[in-house]
């Protein structure tokens, strides 16, 4: 029993929280939370913007052109072997 409350442990008995410590800590935590929320919200959009500015990522460009019925329009030379111009 005496070992549980030895003089080293009793040194800790009068320990107090630092003045304004909790307030400052809550401030830092809410700052971190706000920054991470902003990053979470806007970072994907920012990268999307960067990608589109560099000319990539647009789905429309990758799709083949379609006619009025929704069918794919084939270019004239799509199935024929390429021939050298006459």
């Amino acid at each position, binding site marked *: 029993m005496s070992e549980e409350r030895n*003089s080293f442990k009793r*040194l*800790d*008995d009068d*320990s107090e929280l*630092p003045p304004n410590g*909790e307030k*400052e800590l809550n401030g830092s935590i809410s700052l*971190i939370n706000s920054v991470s929320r902003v990053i979470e919200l806007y970072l994907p959009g920012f990268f999307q913007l960067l990608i589109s500015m560099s000319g990539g990522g647009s789905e429309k460009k990758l799709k083949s052109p379609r006619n009025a019925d929704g069918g794919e329009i084939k270019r004239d030379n799509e199935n024929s072997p390429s021939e050298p111009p006459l």
Partner: protein
Amino acid sequence: MRKQALKNIPDEEIISLYLNTRESSYFSILYKRYGGKVFSKCISLLKDEELANDATQDVFMKIYLNLAKFSGKSKFSTWVYSITYNYCIDFIRRRKKDRNLFADDEVENVGEVIDDVPEKELLEMEVSRLKVVLEKIPLGDKTVLLMKYQDDMSIKEIAEILDKSESAIKMKIKRAKHKAQKTYKDIFKDL
């Protein structure tokens, strides 16, 4: 009523409540439980209230950011104190540009250490006297004594924090105890 009930909940449960809900009041409970002890350790090692205040903030930010990584292998208090000691030791090393804060008995292969220094006198010393003694002995000795007798850390845990072998830590504790007892006798023998 709710506050009263939360007072008796073990740390691990508070942590899991916090991780599941992200409600800051749960983290505040952990701060209220350990903030004072962390602050008092920081004052005792850094010897400056302003620095200790900043250190306590930094330690709790580390705890906040790494809480999900706490595995529960050791007690939560041990985890908190090891972050505190690591922070303070790094700070002192950087400030003093002294990499060898704990190197006075840098004997890695000392073999089996027999600790025959009695600890009864040390553990039953009057608190005000112990404070004086701990201020007089080197910081490295004070730190290992606090780790062992105040925080109940195992030799293995102390060795991991200080990056030393277990036998070197045993030797360090033995010498620290000896120094503390000698200092006590030197100061208080006539009283």
